[in-house]
Structure formats: structure tokens, C-alpha cells
């Protein structure tokens, strides 16, 4: 294609616009990191931009000295691990039968409707809370896993992927005497790794980031997952609440400001996601496409 002058001007502008936009997406995170590593005086004087000034680890020392951080972290790890196992298992077990044609699985339509209803109609906050309460799940990790265990978005993604796998491969396995479950485990799943990786990413990020269920289903702040704990801090951080006892044990608190402490807390709680998602990018883009292209 010939490169006219106007084309060259456009290319330069385009690169500039996209670079500026990328910068806008990154700048809040960079500023956050810079503030979290800076000392009280410079943060309060509003001098921190994109690079830490008067570098200090005081905020992180406070975050990592707090026993609640570890309690919440272990709660989050527990919910992410159990939640992943339950979510991915149910996604596969629902998507596979529903990916079959009606002549293979006659009741497919009934089940599709059964699950579809939950996508458009829900009982809402209070009735769901009462069910969780009635089942004795308050303060249990299962209250964070079971209510959203069947995710139709993931099911749709897997289902469309399963349908893209040529039937002939399965027919060969079936004539060799394999049952449906065997065929699912040894034919479909090995071929579905990109989709499984995509759904896994969504599940991990979803469980890591979830906070509201922790807020309403956990009565004891001890049982708050990390994001719920972060939520209580972000929305009302008051240094006076830290108490004089912790001040006496930890003189470095005097170097803290609410801002740098909050920033350190946020960064500590989101750093796993910042590290994980770029590596999974090729999987989720591919998986999203394969799942959505065939509608």
C-alpha cells in the first residue's frame, strides 16, 4: 500500500493516541506504587508523582505485621482453591451434556431452560442471604463458593468450544466402547486446554476480587477474605483507629500517612493479579474468540 503524507501523519497520531491512552491506564497504578513506597512528609506535601520519594518500607512493614492480613490471605487462598475446583468441575459437567444435539440427549431443552431462567430472574439479595443463613453457612468458606458455583457465562464459553470439536473424534472413541464420561475425560478435555485456561483465569480473578459476599456472609471480621478486608480499609481509613498500643509496638507508624498505608494495602492485595494476567493473555484472547465466534 502506498504511503501518502496524510497516511504518515495519521500513523504518527495513532501511535501517539494509543501510547497516551496506555499511559492513562497505567498512571494510577504507578502513582499508587510510588505513594506506597514514599515517606510521610513527601506524601503529605503532595510531592509524589510517578516515582517514590524518600523511599521507605514503613507502610509495607505495617501491612505485613498485621495478623489480620494473613488471616484474610489464607481465607482468600482457601476460597480461590476450593472455588476453582467447584466452578471448573461444574462448568465442565454442565457444558458437556448441553453441547449434545437433541437427538443424542432428549432432555437437553429442559435443562437449558432450567439454567436459562436463573440468568434472567433472580431472588435478589435478601432471599439469597436467608437461604445461606438457613443452611448454616454464615462464616463458612462455602458461603463464598456455593451460591455462585454454577456460572452460565463459563458454561456458554465451554459449550461453544465443545461444539467446535469434530464429532468424528468422539464417535471413534464411542465405537471403541468408551462411555460418555470416558469420552469427556479422554477426548474432550485434552482438546479443550485453551478454553479451560480461559475459564480458569476468569474463575481465579473472580474469586480473588470478590468482596461483597464476604461482607454480608461473614459476621466475624477474622473470616473476611482479603478483598473484603481491603474494602473496610479503603472506604474508611482512619489512622486514629490504629490505636496507641500498636503505635507503641511499632514506632515506624509515625512515618505513615493514611494515603501511603492505603496504597501499600491495595498494592499488596492486587499484586498477584498484576503478575498473572499478562502471561495468560494469549489463552484468554484465544479462548474468548473460540467461545464466542461460533454463536
Amino acid at each position, binding site marked *: 500500500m502506498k504511503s501518502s503524507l496524510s497516511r504518515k501523519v495519521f500513523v504518527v497520531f495513532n501511535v501517539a493516541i494509543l501510547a497516551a491512552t496506555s499511559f*492513562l491506564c497505567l498512571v*494510577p497504578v504507578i502513582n499508587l506504587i510510588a505513594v506506597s513506597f514514599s515517606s510521610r512528609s513527601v506524601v503529605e506535601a503532595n510531592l509524589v508523582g510517578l516515582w517514590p520519594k524518600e523511599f521507605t518500607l514503613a507502610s509495607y512493614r505495617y501491612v505485613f505485621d498485621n495478623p489480620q492480613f494473613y488471616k484474610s490471605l489464607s481465607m482468600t487462598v482457601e476460597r480461590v482453591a476450593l472455588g476453582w475446583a467447584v466452578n471448573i468441575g461444574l462448568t465442565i459437567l454442565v457444558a458437556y451434556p448441553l453441547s449434545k444435539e437433541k437427538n443424542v440427549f432428549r432432555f437437553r431443552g429442559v435443562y437449558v431452560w432450567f439454567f436459562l431462567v*436463573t440468568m434472567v430472574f433472580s431472588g435478589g439479595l435478601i*432471599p439469597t442471604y436467608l437461604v445461606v443463613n438457613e443452611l448454616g453457612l454464615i462464616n463458612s468458606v462455602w458461603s463464598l463458593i456455593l451460591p455462585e458455583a454454577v456460572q452460565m457465562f463459563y458454561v456458554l464459553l465451554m459449550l461453544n468450544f465443545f461444539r467446535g470439536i469434530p464429532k468424528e473424534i468422539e464417535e471413534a472413541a464411542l465405537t471403541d466402547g468408551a462411555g460418555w464420561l470416558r469420552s469427556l475425560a479422554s477426548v474432550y478435555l485434552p482438546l479443550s486446554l485453551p478454553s479451560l485456561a480461559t475459564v480458569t483465569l476468569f474463575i481465579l480473578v473472580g474469586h480473588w476480587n470478590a468482596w461483597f459476599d464476604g461482607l454480608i456472609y461473614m459476621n466475624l471480621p477474622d473470616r473476611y477474605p482479603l478483598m473484603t478486608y481491603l474494602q473496610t480499609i479503603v472506604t474508611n481509613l482512619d489512622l486514629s483507629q490504629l490505636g496507641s498500643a500498636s503505635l507503641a509496638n511499632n514506632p515506624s507508624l509515625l512515618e505513615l500517612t493514611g494515603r501511603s498505608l492505603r496504597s501499600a494495602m491495595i498494592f499488596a492485595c492486587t499484586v498477584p493479579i498484576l503478575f498473572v494476567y499478562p502471561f495468560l493473555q494469549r489463552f484468554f484472547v484465544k479462548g474468548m474468540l473460540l467461545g464466542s465466534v461460533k454463536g
Partner: protein
Amino acid sequence: MNRGGLRTRKKTLKEMPFHLMLLPAVVITILFKYIPIGGISIAFMDYNPVESFYRQEWVGWDNFTYIFGLPGFGGVLWNTIFIATMKIAGNLIVPVAFALLLNELGGRVFKRSVQTVMYLPHFLSWVALAGVLIDILSPSSGIVNNVLSSMGIKPVFFLGDPASFPYTLVVTDVWKEFGWGTIIYLAAITNIDQTQYEAAIIDGAGRWKQTLHVTVPALAPVMILLTVLGIGNVLQAGFDQVFNLYSPQVYSTGDILDTLVYRIGIVDVQFGPATAVGLFKSAVSFVLIVSGYRLADKLAGYRVF
């Protein structure tokens, strides 16, 4: 007759594994989705949390007259629709624009990096982002207002001024989601038949004309589809975002149905009225979703399953 019955039985037996695979999900769905749908009857009760569910007093439509009569209810409904509609529009147009711009990029490494950075906010929770936004949008110390004041603009209280709060919500939501939204449009662009571009070039179309007459029309069905499916979200203004960013001083323009349900239900423990608001929202959304899907089926031949 007998042979037919035998064949049906054989088929039933062969389908048995499917039922067993679906069983756990069915049980969980009944417990956590269908029973709560039955629990909607709380909307018609004077619900007392101390008593058993079966011993509550029925009050008919009282809870609905109560909530519709609340002085702020009309405002909350309006805020919800206004914020949600602007988000739907923004999250439709901005990703298309950026997909078109990204598509014009030559260098693969640069394109990849730009995309990676643009997806970043999508993966962060509103809790973390709220913390970031409270910090950078602060009128006294945030970098946004620092930049504004260095340009001679008066500081804006983005999160505390009722006039700017809804727009802050919309802009930050689009900022969070636009990069993610480009994925679907970039996919649609790569699926365009290359011969259409060749034909356009033969007709003497430059890059701009090609974009206008080939790429944009090819994206139109996807855009129509997403808009129509988005109709169901008109009462979905984004609880996670609003809850973590709002404060009593911006209730007049920033309070939405979901936050109202939270305050009435969880904070004030008025289960009846809170469920009534929830039911109102579900019912309206249900009608909108069903008509949206009907439209999508008609306009674009789209079916969910």
C-alpha cells in the same frame, strides 16, 4: 410396540450419565437460585427476622406502596437509568473506536503491549480501583487535580460534588472496561473478508474510505447485537463501583437501586421493603432482557444457546 419400548428404555439408559453429570449443578441451582426466587414472597410480608419464614404476616402490596412513596425513590430510579444508559453508550462507542485505531497499528510488539496495558483495569476489583480513584481524584492532593491546577483549572471534587459524581462514575467505568471491550471488535475485524478491501482499493478507496465503507458496516451487526442485549442492563448501574465510591453527600445523584436495597435490607434490616425493591428491579429487567433477546433474534438471528 414392545420393540419400540425397548428402544426407548435403551436410550434412557444411554442418557443416564448426562443426568448424573448435571445432578450436582441442578441441586445447587435449586438451593441457591430457585428457592430464593420463591423467597421473593417476602416482598409481600411484614418480615420479622426473629420468626420462622412460615409464620410471617402477609401485607399485600404494602411494601411496594411504602418504597414507591419514599421521598427519594423517583430520584434513585432516575439515577440508576441515567448512569446505566450512559455506561452502555460509552462502553459501546469507545471500544469500537479503539479497536479501529489498534487495527491500523503495524508493529506487533507495540500492539500487544498496548492491548495488555488496556486490559489491566478490567482485572482489578472495584474495591482496589476505588482506593486508587479516591486517592488520585482527591481535590486537595490527587494527581488529577494537581495536573488541572497546574493548567490553571480550579480543582474539581469528582467524588464529592453531586453535579460531577455521575459523570465520574461513567468515565471511570468506561476507563476500566474499554480495553476489554476491544477484544470482541478486533475479533470481528479479523473476520472480515479480505476481498472486500481489495474491491474497495480497486474502486480507489483510501484507508479512511475503506474503514468507513468496509470495516464499520461489518462491525454494525455486532454493535447492534451488544446494544440490544445491553437493554437488559438498564437498571444495572454497577453496585460494586457505586458502593465503594459514593458517600451521603452525593446520594442525590449517585444513589442507585442496588445500593438502596443494601441500605434498606442489610443496614436497616427491613427485609420486606428491600425484597420489594429487588423484585421491582428483577421484574423490569426480566421484561427488558426478554424483549432484548427477542429483538436480537429478529435483527441478528442471535440465540444464546
